[in-house]
Protein backbone atom coordinates (compact mmCIF):
# COMPACT_ATOMS: atom_id res chain seq x y z
CA UNK A 1 0.00 0.00 0.00
CA UNK A 2 0.95 3.63 -0.43
CA UNK A 3 3.26 3.16 -3.40
CA UNK A 4 3.58 6.36 -5.43
CA UNK A 5 3.55 4.24 -8.57
CA UNK A 6 0.34 3.84 -10.57
CA UNK A 7 1.18 0.25 -11.44
CA UNK A 8 3.80 -1.83 -9.69
CA UNK A 9 4.31 -5.47 -10.64
CA UNK A 10 6.95 -7.85 -9.33
CA UNK A 11 7.45 -11.23 -10.94
CA UNK A 12 3.93 -11.09 -12.38
CA UNK A 13 3.13 -14.49 -13.90
CA UNK A 14 0.18 -16.05 -15.69
CA UNK A 15 -0.02 -19.69 -16.69
CA UNK A 16 -2.88 -21.32 -18.59
CA UNK A 17 -2.44 -25.02 -17.83
CA UNK A 18 1.00 -25.91 -19.14
CA UNK A 19 1.41 -22.75 -21.22
CA UNK A 20 3.01 -19.65 -19.72
CA UNK A 21 1.45 -16.48 -21.13
CA UNK A 22 3.35 -14.07 -18.87
CA UNK A 23 6.55 -15.36 -17.35
CA UNK A 24 7.45 -13.16 -14.38
CA UNK A 25 7.56 -9.49 -15.40
CA UNK A 26 8.32 -6.37 -13.37
CA UNK A 27 6.51 -3.13 -14.20
CA UNK A 28 6.73 0.37 -12.71
CA UNK A 29 4.35 2.95 -14.15
CA UNK A 30 4.67 6.48 -12.76
CA UNK A 31 1.80 8.98 -12.47
CA UNK A 32 1.21 11.08 -15.58
CA UNK A 33 3.20 8.77 -17.82
CA UNK A 34 2.15 7.22 -21.07
CA UNK A 35 3.47 3.71 -20.69
CA UNK A 36 3.52 1.26 -23.59
CA UNK A 37 3.51 -2.50 -23.80
CA UNK A 38 5.03 -3.42 -27.13
CA UNK A 39 5.23 -6.89 -28.58
CA UNK A 40 4.19 -9.21 -31.39
CA UNK A 41 0.94 -11.20 -31.24
CA UNK A 42 1.00 -13.69 -28.37
CA UNK A 43 3.70 -11.79 -26.46
CA UNK A 44 1.49 -11.51 -23.35
CA UNK A 45 0.34 -7.88 -23.71
CA UNK A 46 -3.39 -8.48 -23.37
CA UNK A 47 -2.94 -11.01 -20.54
CA UNK A 48 -0.81 -8.49 -18.66
CA UNK A 49 -3.45 -5.78 -19.08
CA UNK A 50 -6.22 -8.17 -18.02
CA UNK A 51 -4.31 -8.89 -14.82
CA UNK A 52 -3.96 -5.14 -14.21
CA UNK A 53 -7.77 -4.83 -14.57
CA UNK A 54 -8.53 -7.83 -12.35
CA UNK A 55 -10.15 -9.61 -15.30
CA UNK A 56 -7.82 -12.57 -14.99
CA UNK A 57 -6.07 -13.79 -11.86
CA UNK A 58 -2.25 -13.91 -11.70
CA UNK A 59 -0.66 -17.32 -11.17
CA UNK A 60 2.22 -15.70 -9.30
CA UNK A 61 3.95 -12.46 -8.36
CA UNK A 62 2.71 -9.28 -6.74
CA UNK A 63 0.63 -6.53 -8.35
CA UNK A 64 -0.44 -3.13 -7.07
CA UNK A 65 -2.61 -0.75 -9.08
CA UNK A 66 -3.22 2.82 -7.89
CA UNK A 67 -1.59 1.88 -4.59
CA UNK A 68 -3.92 -1.03 -3.85
CA UNK A 69 -3.41 -4.77 -4.21
CA UNK A 70 -4.89 -6.39 -7.30
CA UNK A 71 -7.02 -8.53 -7.52
CA UNK A 72 -7.99 -8.31 -3.82
CA UNK A 73 -9.21 -4.70 -4.14
CA UNK A 74 -10.43 -4.87 -7.73
CA UNK A 75 -13.77 -3.16 -7.17
CA UNK A 76 -12.15 -0.13 -5.51
CA UNK A 77 -9.38 0.01 -8.11
CA UNK A 78 -11.72 -0.26 -11.09
CA UNK A 79 -13.73 2.64 -9.72
CA UNK A 80 -10.65 4.79 -10.45
CA UNK A 81 -9.65 3.49 -13.87
CA UNK A 82 -10.99 3.45 -17.40
CA UNK A 83 -10.64 0.68 -19.97
CA UNK A 84 -10.66 0.69 -23.76
CA UNK A 85 -10.78 -2.97 -24.81
CA UNK A 86 -9.14 -4.41 -27.89
CA UNK A 87 -12.47 -5.70 -29.23
CA UNK A 88 -15.30 -3.23 -28.72
CA UNK A 89 -17.88 -4.35 -26.18
CA UNK A 90 -20.27 -1.43 -26.46
CA UNK A 91 -23.84 -2.32 -25.58
CA UNK A 92 -25.68 -2.86 -28.89
CA UNK A 93 -29.08 -2.59 -27.19
CA UNK A 94 -28.53 1.13 -26.55
CA UNK A 95 -27.78 4.30 -28.51
CA UNK A 96 -24.49 6.20 -28.27
CA UNK A 97 -25.57 8.48 -25.46
CA UNK A 98 -27.45 5.72 -23.61
CA UNK A 99 -24.25 3.68 -23.63
CA UNK A 100 -22.56 6.40 -21.62
CA UNK A 101 -25.40 6.75 -19.12
CA UNK A 102 -25.84 3.02 -18.60
CA UNK A 103 -22.11 2.52 -18.20
CA UNK A 104 -22.00 5.32 -15.65
CA UNK A 105 -24.76 3.55 -13.73
CA UNK A 106 -22.35 0.62 -13.21
CA UNK A 107 -20.24 3.08 -11.22
CA UNK A 108 -23.31 4.09 -9.24
CA UNK A 109 -23.48 7.45 -11.03
CA UNK A 110 -26.94 8.87 -11.65
CA UNK A 111 -28.02 10.60 -14.83
CA UNK A 112 -28.68 13.98 -13.23
CA UNK A 113 -25.01 14.62 -12.42
CA UNK A 114 -23.80 13.55 -15.83
CA UNK A 115 -25.49 15.78 -18.41
CA UNK A 116 -22.51 18.13 -18.70
CA UNK A 117 -19.86 15.41 -18.57
CA UNK A 118 -21.57 13.34 -21.26
CA UNK A 119 -21.81 16.34 -23.55
CA UNK A 120 -18.11 17.09 -23.08
CA UNK A 121 -17.13 13.48 -23.69
CA UNK A 122 -19.12 13.26 -26.92
CA UNK A 123 -17.49 16.50 -27.98
CA UNK A 124 -14.03 15.19 -27.12
CA UNK A 125 -14.42 12.18 -29.39
CA UNK A 126 -16.35 14.09 -32.09
CA UNK A 127 -19.57 12.08 -31.74
CA UNK A 128 -22.00 14.83 -30.69
CA UNK A 129 -23.85 14.51 -34.00
CA UNK A 130 -24.29 10.77 -33.47
CA UNK A 131 -25.59 10.94 -29.90
CA UNK A 132 -28.85 9.18 -30.79
CA UNK A 133 -27.44 6.65 -33.25
CA UNK A 134 -27.73 2.95 -32.50
CA UNK A 135 -24.36 1.25 -32.01
CA UNK A 136 -24.75 -0.94 -35.08
CA UNK A 137 -24.94 2.16 -37.28
CA UNK A 138 -21.45 3.30 -36.21
CA UNK A 139 -18.24 2.67 -38.14
CA UNK A 140 -15.31 0.91 -36.49
CA UNK A 141 -13.60 4.22 -35.84
CA UNK A 142 -16.70 5.73 -34.23
CA UNK A 143 -17.10 2.69 -32.00
CA UNK A 144 -13.52 2.97 -30.80
CA UNK A 145 -13.98 6.68 -30.11
CA UNK A 146 -17.13 5.92 -28.16
CA UNK A 147 -15.21 3.27 -26.21
CA UNK A 148 -12.72 5.97 -25.25
CA UNK A 149 -15.50 8.34 -24.17
CA UNK A 150 -17.10 5.53 -22.18
CA UNK A 151 -13.79 4.77 -20.44
CA UNK A 152 -13.66 8.39 -19.27
CA UNK A 153 -17.17 8.56 -17.85
CA UNK A 154 -15.93 8.03 -14.26
CA UNK A 155 -13.09 10.58 -14.70
CA UNK A 156 -10.43 7.89 -14.13
CA UNK A 157 -6.88 8.49 -12.91
CA UNK A 158 -5.56 5.66 -15.06
CA UNK A 159 -6.66 4.82 -18.60
CA UNK A 160 -5.83 1.34 -19.93
CA UNK A 161 -6.01 0.89 -23.71
CA UNK A 162 -5.50 -2.46 -25.43
CA UNK A 163 -4.40 -1.77 -29.02
CA UNK A 164 -6.45 1.43 -29.27
CA UNK A 165 -5.99 2.04 -33.01
CA UNK A 166 -5.70 -1.46 -34.45
CA UNK A 167 -7.75 -1.75 -37.63
CA UNK A 168 -8.58 1.96 -37.91
CA UNK A 169 -7.92 4.29 -40.82
CA UNK A 170 -5.22 6.99 -40.58
CA UNK A 171 -7.64 9.89 -39.94
CA UNK A 172 -9.14 8.16 -36.93
CA UNK A 173 -5.74 7.07 -35.64
CA UNK A 174 -4.49 10.65 -35.69
CA UNK A 175 -7.64 11.90 -33.98
CA UNK A 176 -7.26 9.26 -31.26
CA UNK A 177 -3.57 10.03 -30.79
CA UNK A 178 -4.30 13.72 -30.37
CA UNK A 179 -7.05 12.98 -27.83
CA UNK A 180 -4.77 10.67 -25.87
CA UNK A 181 -2.09 13.37 -25.75
CA UNK A 182 -4.76 15.80 -24.55
CA UNK A 183 -5.70 13.39 -21.74
CA UNK A 184 -2.05 13.08 -20.78
CA UNK A 185 -1.80 16.86 -20.57
CA UNK A 186 -4.72 16.79 -18.17
CA UNK A 187 -2.62 14.59 -15.91
CA UNK A 188 -4.05 11.14 -16.61
CA UNK A 189 -1.78 8.13 -16.62
CA UNK A 190 -2.07 6.06 -19.79
CA UNK A 191 -1.09 2.45 -20.28
CA UNK A 192 -1.44 1.07 -23.76
CA UNK A 193 -0.50 -2.04 -25.64
CA UNK A 194 0.29 -1.82 -29.31
CA UNK A 195 2.16 -3.43 -32.11
CA UNK A 196 2.29 -0.20 -34.08
CA UNK A 197 5.78 1.21 -33.59
CA UNK A 198 4.69 4.58 -34.85
CA UNK A 199 2.04 4.74 -32.16
CA UNK A 200 4.50 3.77 -29.43
CA UNK A 201 7.07 6.26 -30.66
CA UNK A 202 4.59 9.13 -30.84
CA UNK A 203 2.76 8.58 -27.58
CA UNK A 204 4.83 6.69 -25.05
CA UNK A 205 7.29 8.12 -22.53
CA UNK A 206 8.40 4.65 -21.62
CA UNK A 207 8.05 1.23 -23.17
CA UNK A 208 8.57 -2.37 -22.33
CA UNK A 209 9.10 -4.76 -25.21
CA UNK A 210 7.51 -8.12 -24.48
CA UNK A 211 8.23 -11.35 -26.32
CA UNK A 212 7.19 -14.83 -25.25
CA UNK A 213 5.79 -13.47 -21.97
CA UNK A 214 9.01 -11.83 -20.77
CA UNK A 215 10.40 -8.31 -21.00
CA UNK A 216 13.21 -8.26 -23.55
CA UNK A 217 13.97 -4.55 -23.19
CA UNK A 218 12.63 -1.34 -21.71
CA UNK A 219 13.19 2.39 -21.71
CA UNK A 220 12.17 5.58 -23.49
CA UNK A 221 11.63 5.11 -27.25
CA UNK A 222 14.66 7.22 -28.23
CA UNK A 223 16.86 5.47 -25.67
CA UNK A 224 15.76 2.08 -26.92
CA UNK A 225 16.67 3.04 -30.47
CA UNK A 226 20.04 4.32 -29.32
CA UNK A 227 20.77 1.20 -27.30
CA UNK A 228 19.79 -1.42 -29.80
CA UNK A 229 20.40 -0.13 -33.32
CA UNK A 230 22.76 2.14 -35.20
CA UNK A 231 21.29 5.61 -35.88
CA UNK A 232 21.05 5.31 -39.68
CA UNK A 233 19.41 2.73 -41.89
CA UNK A 234 19.92 2.30 -45.62
CA UNK A 235 17.52 -0.11 -47.28
CA UNK A 236 19.04 -1.43 -50.51
CA UNK A 237 17.42 -3.34 -53.35
CA UNK A 238 19.63 -4.77 -56.09
CA UNK A 239 21.64 -7.81 -57.18
CA UNK A 240 23.12 -9.43 -54.08
CA UNK A 241 26.58 -9.83 -55.65
CA UNK A 242 26.85 -6.13 -56.41
CA UNK A 243 25.69 -5.08 -52.96
CA UNK A 244 28.03 -7.62 -51.34
CA UNK A 245 31.00 -6.04 -53.12
CA UNK A 246 30.03 -2.57 -51.87
CA UNK A 247 29.57 -3.76 -48.29
CA UNK A 248 32.82 -5.74 -48.17
CA UNK A 249 34.73 -2.57 -49.01
CA UNK A 250 33.26 -0.74 -45.98
CA UNK A 251 33.60 -1.09 -42.24
CA UNK A 252 31.06 -0.16 -39.58
CA UNK A 253 28.05 -1.37 -41.55
CA UNK A 254 25.91 -4.22 -40.20
CA UNK A 255 23.51 -5.75 -42.70
CA UNK A 256 20.50 -8.05 -42.66
CA UNK A 257 18.95 -9.73 -45.70
CA UNK A 258 15.16 -9.96 -45.83
CA UNK A 259 13.85 -11.35 -49.13
CA UNK A 260 14.83 -8.79 -51.80
CA UNK A 261 15.94 -6.09 -49.39
CA UNK A 262 19.25 -5.53 -47.65
CA UNK A 263 18.93 -3.54 -44.40
CA UNK A 264 22.24 -1.74 -43.67
CA UNK A 265 22.63 -0.30 -40.15
CA UNK A 266 25.45 2.18 -39.58
CA UNK A 267 26.60 5.19 -37.61
CA UNK A 268 28.00 6.87 -40.73
CA UNK A 269 26.13 6.20 -43.97
CA UNK A 270 28.00 8.71 -46.19
CA UNK A 271 30.53 6.32 -47.74
CA UNK A 272 27.85 3.70 -48.34
CA UNK A 273 25.50 6.19 -49.99
CA UNK A 274 28.28 7.58 -52.17
CA UNK A 275 29.05 4.10 -53.51
CA UNK A 276 25.40 3.16 -53.99
CA UNK A 277 24.69 6.36 -55.94
CA UNK A 278 27.30 5.31 -58.47
CA UNK A 279 25.46 2.08 -59.26
CA UNK A 280 22.70 1.97 -61.89
CA UNK A 281 20.97 -1.29 -61.01
CA UNK A 282 20.59 -0.56 -57.31
CA UNK A 283 17.78 1.32 -55.58
CA UNK A 284 18.18 2.52 -52.02
CA UNK A 285 16.35 4.45 -49.33
CA UNK A 286 18.07 6.23 -46.46
CA UNK A 287 16.23 6.94 -43.16
CA UNK A 288 16.91 7.34 -39.45
CA UNK A 289 16.55 4.20 -37.33
CA UNK A 290 13.17 3.83 -35.66
CA UNK A 291 11.44 1.70 -33.13
CA UNK A 292 10.47 -0.85 -35.74
CA UNK A 293 14.15 -1.64 -36.26
CA UNK A 294 14.53 -2.14 -32.51
CA UNK A 295 11.44 -4.29 -32.40
CA UNK A 296 12.58 -6.53 -35.24
CA UNK A 297 16.07 -6.73 -33.75
CA UNK A 298 14.69 -7.84 -30.39
CA UNK A 299 11.85 -10.09 -31.47
CA UNK A 300 13.14 -11.42 -34.77
CA UNK A 301 11.60 -11.38 -38.20
CA UNK A 302 9.69 -14.65 -38.29
CA UNK A 303 5.90 -14.47 -38.51
CA UNK A 304 3.82 -14.66 -35.32
CA UNK A 305 0.28 -15.78 -35.65
Amino acid at each position, binding site marked *: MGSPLVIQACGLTKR*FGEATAVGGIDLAVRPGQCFGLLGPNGAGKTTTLRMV*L*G*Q*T*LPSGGALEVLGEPMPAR*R*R*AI*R*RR*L*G*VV*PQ*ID*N*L*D*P*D*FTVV*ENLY*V*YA*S*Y*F*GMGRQHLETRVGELLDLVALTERASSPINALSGGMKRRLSIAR*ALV*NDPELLVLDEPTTGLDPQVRHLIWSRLRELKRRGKTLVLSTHYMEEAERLCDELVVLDGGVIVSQGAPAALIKTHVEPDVVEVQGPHGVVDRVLSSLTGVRDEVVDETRYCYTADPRALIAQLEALDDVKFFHRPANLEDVFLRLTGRELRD
Partner: protein
Amino acid sequence: MIRLAALDWRPPGLHPGALAVWRRNLLVWRKLVAPSLLFNFGEPFLYLLGLGFGLGRFIGEIEGIPYFTFLASGLLASAAMNGATYEGMYSVFTRMVPQKTYEGMLATPLDIEDIVAGEMLWCATKGFISALAILIVGAMLGAVQSWTALWCIPLFVLVGLAFGGPAIVASAVSPSYDFFAYYQTLVLTPMFIFCGVFYPVATLPGWLQGLVQFAPLTHAIALIRPLAAGLPSENVLLHLGVLTAYAVVSMYLAVVLVRRRLID
Protein backbone atom coordinates in the same frame (compact mmCIF):
# COMPACT_ATOMS: atom_id res chain seq x y z
CA MET B 1 -14.23 -31.61 -18.09
CA ILE B 2 -14.53 -29.11 -15.29
CA ARG B 3 -11.97 -29.70 -12.53
CA LEU B 4 -13.91 -28.93 -9.36
CA ALA B 5 -10.80 -28.30 -7.25
CA ALA B 6 -9.58 -25.70 -9.75
CA LEU B 7 -12.70 -23.53 -9.35
CA ASP B 8 -12.98 -20.46 -7.17
CA TRP B 9 -15.52 -21.62 -4.57
CA ARG B 10 -15.64 -18.45 -2.49
CA PRO B 11 -19.32 -17.76 -1.71
CA PRO B 12 -20.86 -14.72 -3.41
CA GLY B 13 -22.02 -11.62 -1.56
CA LEU B 14 -24.90 -9.31 -2.42
CA HIS B 15 -24.04 -5.74 -3.45
CA PRO B 16 -26.15 -2.83 -4.74
CA GLY B 17 -24.30 -3.15 -8.08
CA ALA B 18 -26.62 -6.06 -8.89
CA LEU B 19 -29.44 -3.53 -9.23
CA ALA B 20 -27.50 -1.65 -11.92
CA VAL B 21 -27.28 -4.89 -13.92
CA TRP B 22 -31.00 -5.50 -13.41
CA ARG B 23 -31.80 -1.92 -14.41
CA ARG B 24 -29.76 -2.23 -17.61
CA ASN B 25 -32.00 -5.11 -18.68
CA LEU B 26 -35.13 -3.25 -17.67
CA LEU B 27 -34.11 -0.30 -19.88
CA VAL B 28 -33.59 -2.60 -22.86
CA TRP B 29 -36.92 -4.35 -22.23
CA ARG B 30 -38.71 -1.00 -22.08
CA LYS B 31 -37.64 -0.31 -25.65
CA LEU B 32 -39.37 -3.49 -26.84
CA VAL B 33 -42.24 -3.40 -24.42
CA ALA B 34 -45.06 -3.61 -26.99
CA PRO B 35 -44.04 -6.86 -28.73
CA SER B 36 -42.99 -8.43 -25.40
CA LEU B 37 -46.32 -7.71 -23.78
CA LEU B 38 -48.23 -8.88 -26.83
CA PHE B 39 -46.38 -12.19 -26.48
CA ASN B 40 -46.91 -12.32 -22.71
CA PHE B 41 -50.65 -11.69 -22.96
CA GLY B 42 -51.42 -13.22 -26.33
CA GLU B 43 -49.94 -16.70 -25.75
CA PRO B 44 -51.75 -17.49 -22.49
CA PHE B 45 -54.96 -16.04 -23.87
CA LEU B 46 -54.85 -18.51 -26.75
CA TYR B 47 -53.83 -21.40 -24.48
CA LEU B 48 -56.54 -20.73 -21.94
CA LEU B 49 -59.19 -20.12 -24.50
CA GLY B 50 -58.33 -23.12 -26.65
CA LEU B 51 -57.34 -25.75 -24.09
CA GLY B 52 -59.37 -24.48 -21.15
CA PHE B 53 -62.70 -24.12 -22.91
CA GLY B 54 -62.09 -27.02 -25.30
CA LEU B 55 -60.85 -29.65 -22.84
CA GLY B 56 -62.75 -28.18 -19.90
CA ARG B 57 -66.03 -29.13 -21.50
CA PHE B 58 -65.06 -32.82 -21.43
CA ILE B 59 -63.13 -32.90 -18.19
CA GLY B 60 -65.29 -30.85 -15.87
CA GLU B 61 -63.55 -30.93 -12.49
CA ILE B 62 -60.23 -32.37 -11.24
CA GLU B 63 -59.64 -32.72 -7.48
CA GLY B 64 -62.63 -30.49 -6.87
CA ILE B 65 -61.30 -27.71 -9.09
CA PRO B 66 -62.91 -26.70 -12.41
CA TYR B 67 -60.53 -27.79 -15.19
CA PHE B 68 -60.24 -24.25 -16.49
CA THR B 69 -58.88 -23.12 -13.10
CA PHE B 70 -56.74 -26.25 -12.78
CA LEU B 71 -55.09 -25.59 -16.13
CA ALA B 72 -54.73 -21.84 -15.59
CA SER B 73 -52.92 -22.38 -12.27
CA GLY B 74 -50.55 -24.88 -13.91
CA LEU B 75 -49.85 -22.39 -16.68
CA LEU B 76 -49.15 -19.66 -14.11
CA ALA B 77 -46.30 -21.73 -12.72
CA SER B 78 -44.98 -22.91 -16.06
CA ALA B 79 -45.08 -19.36 -17.44
CA ALA B 80 -42.90 -18.17 -14.56
CA MET B 81 -40.61 -21.11 -15.31
CA ASN B 82 -40.37 -20.41 -19.02
CA GLY B 83 -40.08 -16.64 -18.72
CA ALA B 84 -37.19 -16.95 -16.31
CA THR B 85 -35.52 -19.86 -18.10
CA TYR B 86 -35.43 -18.37 -21.60
CA GLU B 87 -33.97 -15.16 -20.25
CA GLY B 88 -31.36 -17.12 -18.31
CA MET B 89 -30.41 -19.22 -21.31
CA TYR B 90 -30.54 -17.31 -24.57
CA SER B 91 -30.36 -13.73 -23.36
CA VAL B 92 -27.73 -14.30 -20.67
CA PHE B 93 -25.62 -16.35 -23.07
CA THR B 94 -25.87 -13.55 -25.65
CA ARG B 95 -24.66 -11.00 -23.13
CA MET B 96 -21.98 -13.31 -21.73
CA VAL B 97 -20.44 -14.57 -24.97
CA PRO B 98 -21.07 -12.89 -28.35
CA GLN B 99 -22.07 -9.48 -27.04
CA LYS B 100 -19.35 -9.28 -24.33
CA THR B 101 -21.63 -7.14 -22.16
CA TYR B 102 -20.19 -8.67 -19.00
CA GLU B 103 -16.64 -8.01 -20.12
CA GLY B 104 -17.59 -4.34 -20.29
CA MET B 105 -19.16 -4.53 -16.85
CA LEU B 106 -16.00 -6.14 -15.47
CA ALA B 107 -14.08 -2.98 -16.32
CA THR B 108 -16.24 -1.15 -13.75
CA PRO B 109 -16.66 -1.71 -9.99
CA LEU B 110 -19.14 -4.50 -10.81
CA ASP B 111 -17.99 -8.07 -10.24
CA ILE B 112 -19.21 -11.51 -11.28
CA GLU B 113 -21.45 -11.87 -8.22
CA ASP B 114 -23.26 -8.61 -9.10
CA ILE B 115 -23.75 -9.71 -12.68
CA VAL B 116 -25.18 -13.10 -11.68
CA ALA B 117 -27.40 -11.64 -8.94
CA GLY B 118 -28.65 -8.89 -11.25
CA GLU B 119 -29.35 -11.34 -14.06
CA MET B 120 -31.15 -13.75 -11.72
CA LEU B 121 -33.30 -10.92 -10.49
CA TRP B 122 -34.04 -9.96 -14.08
CA CYS B 123 -34.90 -13.58 -14.97
CA ALA B 124 -37.28 -13.55 -12.01
CA THR B 125 -38.75 -10.29 -13.30
CA LYS B 126 -39.37 -11.82 -16.73
CA GLY B 127 -40.96 -14.89 -15.12
CA PHE B 128 -43.04 -12.58 -12.96
CA ILE B 129 -44.26 -10.56 -15.97
CA SER B 130 -45.20 -13.72 -17.90
CA ALA B 131 -47.08 -15.21 -14.99
CA LEU B 132 -48.77 -11.95 -14.05
CA ALA B 133 -50.06 -11.66 -17.62
CA ILE B 134 -51.71 -15.08 -17.27
CA LEU B 135 -53.14 -14.17 -13.90
CA ILE B 136 -54.77 -11.09 -15.43
CA VAL B 137 -56.04 -12.92 -18.50
CA GLY B 138 -57.16 -15.86 -16.35
CA ALA B 139 -59.01 -13.58 -13.96
CA MET B 140 -60.77 -11.84 -16.85
CA LEU B 141 -61.84 -15.19 -18.30
CA GLY B 142 -63.12 -16.39 -14.92
CA ALA B 143 -60.37 -18.92 -14.14
CA VAL B 144 -59.39 -17.37 -10.81
CA GLN B 145 -61.67 -18.47 -7.98
CA SER B 146 -60.47 -16.40 -5.03
CA TRP B 147 -58.73 -13.23 -3.90
CA THR B 148 -56.12 -15.50 -2.30
CA ALA B 149 -54.70 -15.62 -5.82
CA LEU B 150 -53.01 -12.29 -5.06
CA TRP B 151 -50.57 -14.25 -2.88
CA CYS B 152 -49.28 -15.74 -6.12
CA ILE B 153 -47.71 -12.43 -7.10
CA PRO B 154 -44.71 -12.61 -4.72
CA LEU B 155 -44.50 -16.34 -5.40
CA PHE B 156 -43.87 -15.67 -9.10
CA VAL B 157 -40.64 -13.90 -8.15
CA LEU B 158 -39.44 -16.85 -6.06
CA VAL B 159 -40.37 -19.28 -8.83
CA GLY B 160 -38.50 -17.08 -11.31
CA LEU B 161 -35.37 -17.13 -9.12
CA ALA B 162 -35.60 -20.91 -8.76
CA PHE B 163 -35.59 -21.33 -12.55
CA GLY B 164 -33.44 -18.36 -13.57
CA GLY B 165 -30.47 -19.61 -11.54
CA PRO B 166 -30.29 -23.08 -13.13
CA ALA B 167 -30.69 -21.52 -16.60
CA ILE B 168 -27.71 -19.23 -15.95
CA VAL B 169 -25.74 -22.28 -14.84
CA ALA B 170 -26.62 -23.87 -18.20
CA SER B 171 -25.46 -20.72 -20.00
CA ALA B 172 -22.20 -20.66 -18.08
CA VAL B 173 -21.24 -24.16 -19.21
CA SER B 174 -22.71 -24.21 -22.72
CA PRO B 175 -20.32 -23.93 -25.65
CA SER B 176 -23.03 -22.53 -27.95
CA TYR B 177 -26.75 -21.92 -28.36
CA ASP B 178 -27.21 -25.49 -29.62
CA PHE B 179 -26.49 -26.83 -26.14
CA PHE B 180 -29.78 -25.36 -24.91
CA ALA B 181 -31.68 -28.01 -26.88
CA TYR B 182 -30.51 -30.50 -24.21
CA TYR B 183 -31.81 -28.31 -21.44
CA GLN B 184 -35.09 -27.81 -23.25
CA THR B 185 -35.67 -31.49 -24.02
CA LEU B 186 -34.19 -33.08 -20.90
CA VAL B 187 -35.24 -30.55 -18.26
CA LEU B 188 -37.96 -28.12 -19.32
CA THR B 189 -40.26 -30.27 -21.42
CA PRO B 190 -40.34 -33.20 -18.94
CA MET B 191 -41.27 -30.78 -16.16
CA PHE B 192 -43.97 -29.19 -18.31
CA ILE B 193 -45.44 -32.62 -19.08
CA PHE B 194 -45.02 -34.46 -15.76
CA CYS B 195 -45.13 -31.92 -12.93
CA GLY B 196 -48.85 -31.36 -12.83
CA VAL B 197 -49.59 -28.55 -15.27
CA PHE B 198 -52.26 -30.53 -17.15
CA TYR B 199 -53.25 -33.30 -14.69
CA PRO B 200 -52.58 -34.15 -11.04
CA VAL B 201 -49.22 -35.66 -10.17
CA ALA B 202 -51.14 -38.33 -8.19
CA THR B 203 -52.18 -40.01 -11.46
CA LEU B 204 -48.55 -40.85 -12.31
CA PRO B 205 -47.03 -44.26 -11.46
CA GLY B 206 -45.47 -44.32 -7.97
CA TRP B 207 -41.81 -44.16 -9.01
CA LEU B 208 -42.48 -41.18 -11.26
CA GLN B 209 -44.41 -39.42 -8.49
CA GLY B 210 -41.29 -39.77 -6.36
CA LEU B 211 -39.09 -38.42 -9.13
CA VAL B 212 -41.15 -35.29 -9.84
CA GLN B 213 -40.85 -34.32 -6.18
CA PHE B 214 -37.29 -33.26 -7.03
CA ALA B 215 -38.50 -30.91 -9.76
CA PRO B 216 -39.09 -27.28 -8.73
CA LEU B 217 -42.11 -26.94 -11.00
CA THR B 218 -44.03 -29.53 -8.94
CA HIS B 219 -43.56 -27.38 -5.84
CA ALA B 220 -44.39 -24.16 -7.67
CA ILE B 221 -47.70 -25.65 -8.82
CA ALA B 222 -48.43 -27.09 -5.37
CA LEU B 223 -48.20 -23.55 -3.98
CA ILE B 224 -49.99 -21.67 -6.74
CA ARG B 225 -52.92 -23.97 -7.51
CA PRO B 226 -54.74 -23.84 -4.15
CA LEU B 227 -54.28 -20.07 -4.04
CA ALA B 228 -55.90 -19.65 -7.47
CA ALA B 229 -58.67 -22.08 -6.61
CA GLY B 230 -59.33 -20.66 -3.14
CA LEU B 231 -58.56 -23.98 -1.44
CA PRO B 232 -56.42 -24.54 1.67
CA SER B 233 -52.65 -24.81 1.08
CA GLU B 234 -50.62 -27.77 2.32
CA ASN B 235 -46.93 -28.23 3.13
CA VAL B 236 -46.26 -24.59 2.35
CA LEU B 237 -42.88 -24.49 4.08
CA LEU B 238 -41.66 -27.59 2.26
CA HIS B 239 -42.56 -26.13 -1.14
CA LEU B 240 -41.10 -22.72 -0.30
CA GLY B 241 -37.98 -24.45 1.01
CA VAL B 242 -37.41 -26.46 -2.18
CA LEU B 243 -37.82 -23.38 -4.38
CA THR B 244 -35.54 -21.31 -2.15
CA ALA B 245 -32.93 -24.07 -2.16
CA TYR B 246 -32.99 -24.16 -5.98
CA ALA B 247 -32.53 -20.40 -6.11
CA VAL B 248 -29.69 -20.25 -3.56
CA VAL B 249 -27.71 -23.28 -4.72
CA SER B 250 -28.03 -22.36 -8.39
CA MET B 251 -26.91 -18.81 -7.70
CA TYR B 252 -23.80 -20.08 -5.94
CA LEU B 253 -23.05 -22.50 -8.77
CA ALA B 254 -23.71 -19.84 -11.39
CA VAL B 255 -21.25 -17.43 -9.73
CA VAL B 256 -18.55 -20.12 -9.56
CA LEU B 257 -19.08 -21.20 -13.17
CA VAL B 258 -19.39 -17.72 -14.66
CA ARG B 259 -16.20 -16.79 -12.81
CA ARG B 260 -14.49 -19.73 -14.42
CA ARG B 261 -15.78 -18.76 -17.84
CA LEU B 262 -14.98 -15.05 -17.71
CA ILE B 263 -12.12 -14.60 -15.24
CA ASP B 264 -10.06 -17.82 -15.88
